[in-house]
């Protein structure tokens, strides 16, 4: 099956000197959730930003590789163009316009055009969005700055949906949210995939939540993809279990020397 979104050996350099990711390749097939796992600073967010587009003010360059979306090379295109093509990002922070009301947030976007050949793109309406996120309907007239973290995340997902995405890029859905809210949101993402046929690239530190709904996963370390496989394969992998799910084979608390050992082992992951 041809992938909807494909990254080939993508390399990003910040400020001309700091290499953030080197040689990242991954594929997102249509109608599937792909998880991208990794610790802080592994390059997950940079990967997503490289897909969704940098601004001149970011001072980042894609120095190698390419991003292929629907069999078109879209490397280095401006963010607004990529969003209209259907590559829509739900960013990690700064994800809603706080000085606008919820209703205005839902209007502050330019949805991708729907011409005749684009039948795969779901025509999302406001009613549909309120159906998925009933909480937002009751808060339409409130300023988005007064929403709670979970509501903000819902609003961000809702506005992203209204952009009519083909591939939804979600950065840290679980960041700073209570486990129960995370569970709800992850279930919602799975529902969106099933009902709207969306492809989702889910960047997560909360590997347990992400792997519960994903079908394929990539593990990033130090700006490289170090391991990938189907979810079953990832769940069976001993290091993934130990470092990302915290269910290692060794029972009980780890001593300090074991943690040092852990860090050394992780480098050779």
């Amino acid at each position: 099956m041809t992938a909807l979104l494909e990254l080939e050996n993508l390399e990003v350099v910040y400020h001309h000197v700091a290499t953030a990711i080197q040689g990242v390749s991954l594929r997102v097939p249509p109608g599937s959730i792909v998880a991208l796992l990794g610790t802080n600073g592994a390059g997950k967010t940079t990967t997503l930003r490289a897909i969704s587009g940098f601004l001149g003010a970011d001072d980042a360059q894609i120095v190698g590789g390419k991003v292929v979306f629907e069999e078109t090379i879209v490397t280095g295109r401006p963010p607004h163009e990529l969003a209209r093509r259907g590559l829509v990002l739900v960013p990690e922070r700064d994800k809603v316009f706080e000085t606008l009301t919820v209703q205005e947030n839902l209007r502050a976007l330019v949805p991708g055009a729907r011409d005749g050949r684009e039948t795969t793109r779901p025509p999302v309406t406001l009613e549909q969005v309120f159906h998925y996120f009933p909480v937002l309907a009751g808060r339409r007239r409130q300023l988005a700055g007064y929403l709670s973290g979970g509501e903000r995340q819902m609003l961000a997902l809702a506005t992203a949906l209204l952009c009519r995405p083909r591939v939804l890029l979600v950065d840290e859905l679980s960041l700073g949210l209570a486990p129960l809210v995370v569970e709800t949101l992850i279930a919602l993402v799975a529902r969106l995939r099933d009902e709207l046929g969306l492809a989702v690239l889910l960047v997560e530190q909360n590997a347990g939540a992400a792997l519960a709904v994903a079908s394929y996963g990539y593990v990033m370390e130090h700006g490289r993809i170090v391991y990938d496989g189907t979810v079953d394969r990832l769940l069976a992998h001993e290091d993934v279990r130990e470092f990302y799910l915290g269910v290692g084979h060794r029972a009980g608390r780890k001593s300090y020397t074991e943690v040092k050992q852990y860090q050394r082992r992780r480098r050779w992951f």
Partner: protein
Amino acid sequence: MTQVLATTVVVASLYALLAAGYVLVYRATRVLNLAQGDMMTLGGYFLFLVVSAVPGQPALSVATAAALSAAAGFAIYRLLMRPMAGHPIFAAVLVTVTLGILLRAAIVLVYTDRIRHPLPLLGLANPPRRLPGGAVVSTFDLLTVAVAAALFLGLFAFLRLSPLGIQMRAAGEKALLAAQRGINFQLLFALSWALAGFAGALAGILYANNVRLDPSLGVLGLRVPGGAEYYLFPLKFGAFGLLMAAFLVFEPQGLVGIWRRARNWVVLWPLRYRPLRPAS
């Protein structure tokens, strides 16, 4: 007493027209446009330019002058302000200061600093009107109040209700997020400058017809953010000079920043990014 009240409303309306330009640019791009007063002067001179060529056509002249000013605002954003993206806001504000000085100089070069009166060329008169309370104001005074009210109602509706206006406010808050939502924020920023040029032109045209037209009309604009700036007129350039000197020396991105960047560039030169293979 009613005279004082009427005059206050008229003057406030003129300042409101000017302030609309400041607010539009500030809300969208977060830059305080200190050239707004000179863009107002420019609007007045555009009117003068048009009526000199085609006298006796008020509606056509005013429309053309306002359109030219809007185009000038658009061009200013594209040529001067857009390259300032990613730089400190303060640097962009200094660019607008320079722009104001340049605009004024250009106007003096073309039209000299003679006081002009475009009103007779338009073929209009400006008779005094007696208001119900006993106050007397000129016709263009009344027009100023009406135009300011109409512009503010229009802007309110535009920014609150129209999709483009909401997108403009969104882009003003978080440009990156706006771009990620498919909004071409560069275009919207340029549009906000064009609208500011339009509002400035309205103020300039009204003032030029009502009072006079001369290159230092823009000083009116500085009173909006500055308050007492008018009375400190002789000190103004000195103050800007000091401000610029302080900026160069103390601001982190100033001389020190240039030195630091140069040093970093030298230090990091051996570590710079080099592709391992030739680019395909």
